[in-house]
Structures are given as structure tokens and as C-alpha cells.
């Protein structure tokens, strides 16, 4: 069986496994374009995974994300469903980096903005955060207004980039 995952550095991993009575063995593993030779096995123990070096990992899946605690560190790997390209069509949309309240919308629809310009001021958990224009562009749509409560990842502004 083969699965693809994306790590915190947007690096893509493809892992091919074969299973036997004594757990799983890696057939092939790659990180980006690089093939990795692996000589480890792993076995499932309830909600944990036991690796052949004797270490245990605690895992849990939330949505498409695998959360894993191993050797005192926590990681999140996103499962890439076959046939889905996650990097599609998000260009031009500016999203809320955290859930919170919109304190100020500093631009209007149709306004020309410059890269680095502050567009929206938001607040969550006593912290203020500015959403800035990543590139020069035109405000195509404003999808929030002052006082709105927004979720993390909610689209706040559509920005048309300078082609």
C-alpha cells in the first residue's frame, strides 16, 4: 500500500509498505525527489506504533492530519488523498491566520494596494495581527467587515495579482 504525506516544510513523502504477521516493512520511501533507503519495521500497538528501534509513537488522526508524538516531539503530517492537488486555486485569497475578531478593514473594494501594505487588523486571544498584501494588486472582494468573528483559514480578501 502506498500513501503520500506532506510535512511542516511542505515536503512531500511517499511511503510504500508491505504487511506481514510481524508488522509493516517499508518497500520504498521518498522525500520530494529523493529516494530513501530504509531498514525499519513498525508494528501497531493499539493507538501507538512500535518501531523496530524500540521507540514508540502516539498518533491520532484529525481530519486529514496525522498528529504524532515521538521521542518527545510532536509533528503533524497531512495525508494527501490521491487525485487531489491541495495547492490549487488558493492564489489571490488572503485567509485568516488565526481565528478571531476583525478589528479594522483598512482597504475598500477596487482599491490598488502595494505589497506589504496592511489590509486587515484582527485580534484573537489578546493578540493583534495584521494581514498584509503579499503582492501588489487590486482588491477584488472584501469578505469580512469590522467586528466579524472569523475562523482560521476563512477567506478575508480576494486580491488580483499584477500579472
Amino acid at each position, binding site marked *: 500500500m502506498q500513501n503520500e504525506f506532506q510535512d511542516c516544510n511542505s515536503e512531500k513523502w511517499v*511511503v510504500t509498505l508491505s504487511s506481514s504477521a510481524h508488522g*509493516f516493512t517499508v518497500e520504498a520511501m521518498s522525500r520530494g525527489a529523493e529516494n530513501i533507503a*530504509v531498514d525499519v519495521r513498525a508494528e501497531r500497538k493499539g493507538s501507538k506504533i512500535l518501531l523496530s528501534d524500540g521507540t514508540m509513537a*502516539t498518533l491520532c*488522526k484529525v481530519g486529514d492530519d496525522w498528529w504524532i508524538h515521538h521521542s518527545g*516531539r510532536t509533528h503533524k*503530517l497531512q495525508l494527501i488523498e490521491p487525485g487531489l492537488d491541495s495547492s490549487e486555486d488558493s492564489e489571490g485569497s488572503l485567509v485568516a491566520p488565526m481565528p478571531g475578531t476583525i478589528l479594522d478593514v483598512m482597504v475598500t473594494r477596487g482599491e490598488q494596494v502595494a505589497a506589504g501594505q496592511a489590509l486587515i487588523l484582527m485580534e484573537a486571544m489578546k493578540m493583534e495581527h495584521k494581514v498584509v498584501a503579499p503582492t501588489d494588486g487590486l482588491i477584488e472582494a472584501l469578505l469580512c467587515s469590522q467586528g466579524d468573528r472569523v475562523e482560521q483559514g476563512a477567506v478575508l480578501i480576494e486580491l488580483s495579482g499584477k500579472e
Partner: protein
Amino acid sequence: MVLDWMEGAERPFSKVLVANRGEIACRIIRACKELGLNSVAVHAEDDKDSLFVEMADESILLEGTGLAQTYLNGEQIISIALKNGVHAIHPGFGFLSERSDFANAVNSAGLVWVGPPAQAIDSMGDKMTARRLMRQAGVPVIPGEEINESDPEKELAAIHEASQRIGLPLMIKASAGGGGKGMRMVSEFSGVRGAAQAARREAEAAFGDGRVYIEKMLTSSRHIEIQILADSFSNVIHLGERECSVQRRHQKVLEEAPSPVVSEGLRAQMGAAAVNAAKAVFYEGAGTVEFLVTTHGTFHFLEMNTRIQVEHPITECVTGVDLVVEQFRIAAGLPLNREQTDISINGHSIEVRIYAESPASGFLPATGTLARWQAPEGPGVRVDTGVRQGDEVTPSYDPMLAKLIVHASDRNAAIRRMRRALSEFVILGTVTNVDFLQDLIQHPSFKAGRTSTDFIAEHWGNGWTEQAPSIDVVLAVAVAEASGMQRNKTVSASSESLDPLRHDPSNPFLSIGKRFP
């Protein structure tokens, strides 16, 4: 029936309303249980399933939405107390804990206020008054001047003149300020005017009081605070210091006791100053006097926090004194049962604050489900939290999930213990700062005790980078996916059926069934 420990108390009580939520509410409820006091939790609608509500003997819904209508609604809280036979109110920290009008209202309603007298809160809450009182009491304050001019133009001129005398860099602070609001740093004389106007405007808007004062900015200083206890009979003792230098944007991240730079002599001096500070405002209860300590070892009064502090557990660890229990004893009108000479510092304690935040993306607050929550255990480890597995982390409240506290024989042993405890802490489903804290406590400068308020900015000025996953990690994830490990479950039913021995209660290998290597 008066509880045995309360015999002879002037203001006995047996039922306590906890006017707070989350971790500190749980902490206070635990003290209530130990003391035989009945506890009442009050909670907003969105907290109805929270741990502190479950832990309290009774829980009562606060009508309304938002903080102002719920946890900050003193009127509603007092009315609930009166209707439900409550005798005393403990405010915890934050929320209503430093509102003197609330303290007065509690007393006027005939209830016992578990906190300092309203007049002490006011004297310390107004920073200009506090500075004046401290100078009179012989407590060293930060070099600076209070500005007493009501005419805006004259005030700006006075600020300008004062800034010449004090020197750069300096801070312009609002007298009514706190929590970083109404505070401006000035590093050039040309910036004094603008900074003064901004600080004034911000303070005017936030506190309705624009009075400001100027303090010399003490760079690379340490933030060290002294815990005090004062009873209603003018007995005041101190319980040593807490080193709180490791901060980010004026929010404490790690605290330790004792401080690696405070000698017996300095502790005695600072302790005496803190006791004088408390006496100067006729303080009662548990309180904290904050000082800035310069690299030359001189200390200056910063402010007094007239409540229990977030980081109180480290003092409890090294002194063996339960501060929340003492708060209740003092509120009941009992005298302190310890003298200064009974207090000694035993070993070393460190606390870290576990936040739902993403250190890798500028420490932005994070939300999510605590799909898996496994707190560390074992010798010398204490976890104070208000959450448990399955809880949602929402943006409505403070992002602090837990305080992890360790206690060991000395500082190095405490650092090693913290490292072990952090590595045991499993939190899955929400991003936290646990891995960052692990790097922080292992930093050579921290290990060497070289901490100042600039510590995080100095070492992680360009941000913190999370460790990329190892091959083992990716393999474990691939195996979990391939074996169809259930979503969001602690123990999957299918895995148990795979292994018939798991159902046998007499099987001694249930938890140690390792096979590799």
C-alpha cells in the same frame, strides 16, 4: 458547624464561590476540597462542559454572552452568591481579582472577600500613587518622575524636561496602565512628544485616565518578584523570590524559584523591601511585589500584583506552603501560622506555561480539538490545567492550556526533570509551544542561568523553527494510515480484537506487550 481548621476565626465560612474559570478555578476548587469547603462554579454558556464546572460541588450558569456580561459581571456573580447560600468569593487572577469596586461590593453584600482590602488594590493599581507610597516606605523605585500637569501642553513640556533629567532610553507609562497597555519606550528625545501623546491617548481610551509617569528603561534587567503573605493582624512574611525573566511581549513563559542570581543576602533585602511595600498599603492576603534587578544587582520596585499569581506553584514547591489555602485562612481572619524564620527554600522549581499557539508562525494563537491529551506524571511533576482530552480550544478565552511545574533538589536536576516531563507531554490535535519550551530549557544560556527579559527575542529573534519529521516519524504515520487506525480515538476497538490477550484481565503484559527489538 465550623470546620476544625477555622475554629476561632473571626469570619468563618463553609461555601465558596469561585469567580473564575479554567485552570485557576480548578486549582481553587481543589483547595476547597482539601479544606472541606463547598465550592460553587459560575460559568458562561460555552463553558458548561469545562473541567472546572465538573469539579465544583455546584455550578451555576452566568446569563449573557461575552466577558462583560459573564465573568466580569460582578453584580450577577454577587446575586448568584446571595441566592445560593455562598459565604465567600475567591476571584482567582485576572477578571475581577483586581477590581476594588468588586471587592467593596462583595464586602457590602455581607460576603467574605478572599483577597486584599479594596484600598490596597487601589493604592497599588494606580502606579503613580504606588511609586509615591513606595518611596515613602523606603522601597527603591525605578528612577523616574510622576507628571502632575492637567493642561496638555504644559504636561508635554513637563514630560520633555523630565526626560532630559532621566536620560535615554526611557519608558512613558500610564498611571492606570497594566498588561502592556498605555506604555511607550523612547530611545530618542525627538520621540518623547509622540510617545507621550500615544501613551496618554491609549490610557485615556482603555482606563479613562490619561495621567502618565516616566521611568528610566533598565535594559537587560531581570524580572524578579517576591511572594508575600499578610494577615489581618499586621503580620507580613515573604516566601522568597520567583525569577520571571523569560517573557515574550511582556507575557511570562517560564518561571523559576529560587532565582539563579539571588543570593541569601539579596533575598533578605528584597524580601524586607516587599514586606515594607505590603505594610505601606495595609495589605492582607497573598500578594506579589515585582522588582527589576539590574545587571549590577540593584533592585527597583516595578509594581505589586494584589492577587494570587499564575506562577504561584513554584513558590509552593520550594517553601511547602499552600498559598491558596493560606488565602482562605487569612480571609477567614486567622493569623499567619508561620513566622519569617520558619520559611526556608528547599530545592529548585520551574514552571512553564503550555499555550495553544504556533511558535513556528510567530506564536500565533492556535485552536483545535485536544484529540489526545496525556500529561506527564512521576516524581516532582505537577500539572495545573483546566482542560482534558476531548476539549475544544476556542478563541474565546486565554490560550494557556496548562502549567507544568517540576520540583527537584537543585537547578540542574530541575532542568533535567522538566526536559523529561515535557517529552512525556502528549498533546495531539492542537498546535502548542511544548517543543519550543523543550528547546528553551535546553538552551546553553538558560542552563547557565543567563536569562533576562530579552532572552527569547535575543535567541529566537528571527523566529523558531520546528524540527522536520524523521524517517521513523513518517514511517509510523504511514503504518497508522495503512492499518486504519481510527480517527480521534484513544484506543481503537479493532486493535483490541486483533489481540485476544488484551481482553484477559489477568494478563500482566497488557501494558508492556512490546515485541521489538
